[in-house]
């Protein structure tokens, strides 16, 4: 088999990639690049899951990798990019409460806090092993950073992206510490896809009635049906 120390060091480098993508999602202003960076973040998690599978050989990990790849690397980013293209919003430059700079600084503090808290929680357990511990810290931090994106952005589309990156944090934590049952992973992914579908409502017509909303979908070319040509 492949050397496990080698796999460990590659996973650590991938951790760095995840931190970089999270920092980018917090501070970037260009919507399209946030979407592609989100896809990159998910891809990194897929690779981590595959490497863990090599390390541990549990088939659940392989299934998680496959389902994450299909949903978060391909389907969801494609959907969001389509919505974004149709509503023609390219940038998100409005922020609530926190500017990107202060959210970056705050997220640093959060990471430190998570670290200290987890050291205490895991003191007695066998999970003190370096790699798994760091995975847990990073998972929770990614979750909190995603939460910060969710509340500091004004546009619905970026809020959704923040939520999605929060879910990536949960997945990462699940990969390293507890083994979530596969059915739950599956349900979470279905939830996410429904959430992205709901995003069309949030971004296109939250304030409209149902008939009006249908018209708006037509206007933004998000809904094409042939019978209703007027």
């Amino acid at each position: 088999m492949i050397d496990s120390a080698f796999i460990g060091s590659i996973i650590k480098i991938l951790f760095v990639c995840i931190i970089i993508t999270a920092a980018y999602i917090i501070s970037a202003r260009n919507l399209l690049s946030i979407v592609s960076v989100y896809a990159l973040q998910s891809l990194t998690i897929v690779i981590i899951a595959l490497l863990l599978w090599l390390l541990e050989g549990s088939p659940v990990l392989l299934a998680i990798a496959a389902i994450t790849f299909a949903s978060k690397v391909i389907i969801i980013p494609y959907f969001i990019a389509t919505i974004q293209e149709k509503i023609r919003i390219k940038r998100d430059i409005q922020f609530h409460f926190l500017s990107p700079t202060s959210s970056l600084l705050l997220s640093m503090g959060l990471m430190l806090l998570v670290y200290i808290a987890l050291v205490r929680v895991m003191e007695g357990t066998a999970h003190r092993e370096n790699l798994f511990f760091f995975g847990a810290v990073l998972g929770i931090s990614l979750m909190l950073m995603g939460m910060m994106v969710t509340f500091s952005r004004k546009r619905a589309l970026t809020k959704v992206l923040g939520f999605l990156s929060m879910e990536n944090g949960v997945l990462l934590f699940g990969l390293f510490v507890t083994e979530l049952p596969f059915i739950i992973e599956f349900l979470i992914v279905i939830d996410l896809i429904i959430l992205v579908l709901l995003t069309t409502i949030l971004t296109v017509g939250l304030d409209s009635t149902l008939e009006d909303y249908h018209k708006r979908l037509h206007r933004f070319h998000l809904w094409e049906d042939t019978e209703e040509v007027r």
Partner: protein
Amino acid sequence: MNLEFFFYILLNTAVVLLIAPLFSGLIKKVKAWTQGRQGPPLFQQYFVLFKLVKKEVIYSPNASWVMRAAPFLNMAAILVAALFVPLVFVTEPVGGIGNVILFLYLLAFARFFMALAGLDAGSSFGGMGSSREMSIAAIIEPTTIIVFAALAIVFKTTSIFSMFFTSASTQALVTPTIILIGISLFIILIVETSRIPVDNPETHLELTMIHEGMLLEQSGKNLALMELSAAVKLTVLMALLINLMIPAGLALSLTAAGVVIGAVLFILKGSVLAIIIGLFESSMAKKRLFQVPSLFAMAFFFSTLIIIIEVFA
């Protein structure tokens, strides 16, 4: 002072002076290509410097001795700082050379005199350039210190020489901390050398210029010195980045073959980095002055993270 260190001083200074205009010319060329232009020849910077050296120097009637001394002080400080960063081979440091904090303050010293010279001629452009440069310098300073502190913690020494020794003798593998430090150093490099998201080195527009504004009143030999010192500073910071990240080729002893291989590899690595800088600049628009701190915040974030990881783990 032993003989090897003496040769080190000669060789390092000669290499940095010879190579510096090449790298800044290469960046210009890459930027021209991305804009669909042919751009100036690769060696244009050398011709420009050669031409400027032959021209006479003209001082403004308001100028004091600061204007006359600044180019020399600036060049001297940057050349001393260049000694801290081995380009082609590393030797035992002599007399405590290589201290990180001294390195940073040599750069700050050069910047201080450049800003003074901008104010001294009494033109409004120069004053504006100086005030902008100093405010950016004041904001970037904490970030720079934190980045170098992270370097010091990772390599467990405050001497830049020892850092190069460790990285050249272990042929440092790509570790997570090294990647993060590389990104931070790259951002510092962009800001310190006044490149695009912060300042545009090509423009002479009143509204945007920072670095060029301070040089408007310089002429002849003095301008040549200022331009060369800016190019040397770029090369030194590039060398710091590439020789710490990818130390391949950095000779540990003074042999003809080692030095030649080191020089060739350094030019190769530097050219790749110069192309990356050119592409990075072309892919970005200049940021508003008030948005520049978000760029530093990234470097600050990564280097603080390194410190946290190194201290706690």
